[in-house]
């Protein structure tokens, strides 16, 4: 088993929580993990990414080679496109559709969606809206994780356990909110794929 994942977003959007949960789930399944994070300067509202590598064999490089990523998981639509050079031709792009506009020259969102549509395998969902509808606006990142979960080769229950152990310090309400968001995202992805 091998999954090379680029996580993308804007500083402060919670991509490191997604990485932490997948990482915890992988480790508890006995899978090797390497995860390169970005700290420092770029966290201040700039673009951020994390290289997450899972494999049943030991992993050499912390960085994913160009053209080899199995998936891009993005919490922001334009950011999902920034890492296309990493995506393999068979890879999946899973992205939120709610733009995070903190620059004056943010492109026309229709054009962004058009570019996303050109990627052979993609799943798009309005994770912000879905999270808000479910009463937990701050867990859009978990909705995205749910949507990516069919491609992870990690059973959903193990991801749920990882959410449990990651958030349990913050109380049961927070755990349930995130579990709920995960399931909503999963359902949306399943529905899109069966279309």
């Amino acid at each position, binding site marked *: 088993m091998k999954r090379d994942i680029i996580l993308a977003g804007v500083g402060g959007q919670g991509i490191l929580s997604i990485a932490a949960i997948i*990482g915890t789930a992988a480790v508890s399944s006995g899978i090797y*993990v*390497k*995860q390169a994070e970005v*700290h420092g300067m770029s966290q201040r509202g700039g673009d951020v990414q994390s290289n997450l590598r899972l494999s049943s064999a030991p992993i050499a490089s*912390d960085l994913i*080679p*160009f053209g080899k990523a199995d998936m891009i998981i993005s919490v922001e639509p334009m950011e999902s*496109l920034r890492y296309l050079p990493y995506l393999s031709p068979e890879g999946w792009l899973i992205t939120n559709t709610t733009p995070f506009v903190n620059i004056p*020259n943010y492109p026309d969102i229709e054009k962004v969606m058009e570019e996303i549509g050109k990627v052979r395998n993609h799943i798009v969902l309005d994770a912000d809206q879905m999270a808000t509808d479910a009463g937990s606006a701050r867990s859009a990142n978990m909705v995205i994780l749910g949507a990516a979960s069919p491609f992870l080769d990690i059973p959903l229950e193990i991801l749920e356990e990882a959410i449990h152990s990651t958030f349990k310090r913050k109380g049961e309400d927070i755990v349930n909110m995130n579990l709920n968001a995960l399931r909503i995202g999963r359902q949306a992805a399943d529905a899109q794929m069966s279309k």
Partner: protein
Amino acid sequence: MQKLVLLGDEAIAQAAIDAGISGIYAYPGTPSTEITEYIQHSKEAAAKGIKACWTANEKTAMETALGMSYAGKRTMVCMKHVGLNVAADPFINSAITGANGGLIIVSADDPSMHSSQNEQDSRFYGKFALVPILEPSNQQEAYDMVRYGFDLSERFRLPVMLRITTRLAHSRSGIETRQQREQNDVSLPENLRQFVLLPAIARKQYKNLLGQQQALISESETSGLNTYIDGTDKSKGIITTGLAYNYLMENFADRIVPFPVVKIGQYPLPVKLIEKLANECEELLIMEEGMPLVEEQLAGLLHRGIKVRGRLDGTLPRDGELNPNIVAVALGFTDTRGEEIPEIVASRPPSLCVGCPHTDSYLALNEAMESYSKGRVFADIGCYTLAALPPLQSINSCVDMGASITMAKGAADAGLVPAVAVIGDSTFTHSGMTGLLDAVIHNAPITVLILDNSTTGMTGGQSSEAFGRLKDIVTGLGVDPEHIRILKPLRKNHAENVQAIKEELSYEGVSVIIPTRECIQTLNKRMREKFKNKK
């Protein structure tokens, strides 16, 4: 033994705790910050009474660690690469004094400048100082090298450098820890003049250091941290340093490289291993995560003898960090690449947080400066450097910590009056105070803004040594109290703040303006914690 998933920085920190350190000293700087933070948050470290302190700057950190080593205890000092420039004086001299308790200097380099103003390679400093350097290629090695490094330091009575780079520091992986070791007792150096670098003593100590070099080379050849991995295809021999080894392996699905490889993890270079490689192979390909240090030594100035390829002949790029693709191309493999980035994707540079106090300070400064020609604002390093970019575009320099005040004085001396310096509170206590003293003594016509946000913001909100002391420090340095102005940078105070800055700009002497309001990020964090504790 315990299995933990840790950042490279955290692995180093845990290793230091397990190896029996008594203190860690550091000034924050990406990508080294998390080492000290991990120990500060560790209950284990607290129970063992390990001192984990932020210091005013890297020089004071290095000297404090040297003092702890003098007293016989193990200690670590951490900094980012440019911090070693600041600590260079005590660092180089610590090789002459030598160590007593184990002493490791961690210098975290940032090739490709993810969060830095340059990409210098700390190995050059280690080589210059003639101390052993350890360079891990993964998190487990980082952990293990700390334990070994302390032993090496105590065996040779020398400081040891641990050189890491961003991708190792900030990448997570599983590591196995080892049995914990007790701290050392206090014990003074056998020779109480060992640390007295008067010329007569220093000459002797320096000869001693030179005399140890051969033994250090033998150590490099036998410690197991430099390895010769044989291969069948002798058309090339490959030398890797640090993370380059991983990128090499990434290019071979079965992790078997057909060429002989020398994997470097310890310096001085293992001469015998490299000789063997050079004797057996037709040419050498050097892959270094950093500047071409090994390559320069092997190529020699005239490129005579065996052909050496690497960053100097263009086989690998001259600058920036390596990655699997760059290494693939150097090996002659075809590059892989997915679709190009669509043209519509705009760059998203970092920016000041919404509600940041610096924004209000700069808006006032911009307006106060409107009547003067552009190009007069010398700034420094911190969140407030982001004001170089639109929309604020307020500043004209950012060079090294503390350079704002001193450059403003130089420009004022040249006739650029008024000249303005903008410096953060933590940067001011790091390296700004001495420059301000210069300015006061010569009554330079400069206006200094010390942006006091109560924290070291850029690196994630560490405590600032300036906290609650700025006015006293500035007064103590001799700034006329009439020209020390404390402002509150808020939109509602804009007009009044503009007026105050204008008044000080027209004063032909040193003025210090201290806009004071807490960083939004640390404020929010404090409020969240307060709320949590109340619940």
